[in-house]
C-alpha cells in the first residue's frame, strides 16, 4: 500500500498526500462537534450530567483537531499557494469556527456552578454547531471565488481526474482519524467519570 503512487496533481505534486492528514482533521472535528451538539440537546432534555461531560470533552478534543487542521493547512498553503495565510472564505471561516469553540471552552471555565455551567454551555454548543457549519463549509462553498479545494469556484478533490489510489487511502484515513479523535475523547470522559465518582463518595 505504501508504494502505490497517487496522481501528483500539478503544483501540488507529492503534497497531494496531505489529503490523508489535513482533510480528516476537519472531518474529525465536525464529527466530534456533532457528538457535542447531540449530547448538549440530550443534557437539556434530561438534565443528566453525563451528557454534559460527553459534550464538553468532545468539544475540547474537536478544538485540538481544529488547531491541527489550521496548522497543517497553513503549512500546506505556504508551499503550494506561497503564503501562510490567504484572505480566503474557507480559511477565515474555519478560523472563526475554531475561535467560537475556544470561546466555548473559556465560557465553561468561567462558570463555577456545575449545573449552571452545563446549561449555559449546552445552549452555546447547540447554537454554535450550525454556525460552525455555515462559516467553515456553507459560506465558503457559496463564495464567488476561493483557492481552497471544494469551495467557491475551486472543485473538490473528488472532481479531479484522480485514479482511485487516493481514495483507497483517503476513506480509511478519515475513518481512522475519527476513531482516533473519539478514543482520545473517551479517555477524557472516563477520567472525568472517576473524578465525579470520587467527589460524590466524599459527600
Amino acid at each position, binding site marked *: 500500500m505504501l508504494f502505490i503512487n497517487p496522481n*501528483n496533481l500539478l503544483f*501540488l*505534486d*507529492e*503534497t497531494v*498526500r*496531505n489529503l490523508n*492528514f*489535513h482533510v480528516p*482533521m476537519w472531518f474529525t472535528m465536525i464529527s466530534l462537534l456533532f457528538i457535542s451538539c447531540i449530547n448538549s440537546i440530550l443534557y437539556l432534555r434530561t438534565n443528566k450530567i453525563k451528557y454534559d461531560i460527553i459534550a464538553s470533552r468532545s468539544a475540547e*478534543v474537536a478544538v*485540538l483537531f481544529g*488547531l*491541527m487542521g489550521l*496548522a*497543517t493547512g497553513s*503549512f*500546506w498553503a505556504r*508551499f*503550494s499557494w506561497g503564503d501562510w495565510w490567504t484572505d480566503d472564505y474557507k480559511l477565515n471561516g474555519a478560523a472563526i469556527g475554531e475561535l467560537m469553540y475556544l470561546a466555548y471552552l473559556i465560557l465553561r471555565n468561567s462558570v463555577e456552578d456545575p449545573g449552571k455551567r452545563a446549561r449555559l454551555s449546552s445552549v452555546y454548543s447547540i447554537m454554535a454547531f450550525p454556525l460552525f457549519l455555515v462559516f467553515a463549509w456553507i459560506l465558503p462553498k457559496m463564495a464567488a471565488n476561493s483557492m481552497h479545494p471544494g469551495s467557491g469556484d475551486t472543485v473538490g478533490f473528488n472532481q479531479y481526474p484522480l485514479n482511485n489510489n487516493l481514495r483507497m487511502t483517503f476513506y480509511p484515513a478519515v475513518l481512522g482519524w475519527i476513531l*482516533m479523535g473519539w478514543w*482520545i475523547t473517551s*479517555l*477524557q470522559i472516563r*477520567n472525568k467519570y*472517576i*473524578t465525579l465518582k*470520587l467527589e460524590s*463518595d*466524599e459527600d
Partner: protein
Amino acid sequence: MKIRSLLSLSLTLLTGQTFAQTKENLFYSNGKIYVVVAVISIIFTGIVTYLILLDRRLKRTEKELRDKFDKKGSKD
C-alpha cells in the same frame, strides 16, 4: 560554556539567511514530499502534547484515588 555556544549557534542558524534558504530548498525538493513530512510532524506533536496533558489529569485523579484509600485504610 558548551551549552551557550550551542545556543548561539542554533540562534544564528534559526535567524540566518542560509538556514532559511536551505529550509526553503528542502521543502521544494523531491516533489515537495517534505511538506507532507512536516504536516505529519505537526499532527504528531499536537496529539502527543494533548496526551501529555491528559496524562497529567490522570495523575491528579490517581492521586485523589490514592489519598482516598489511604484515608479509608487509617479508619479501619
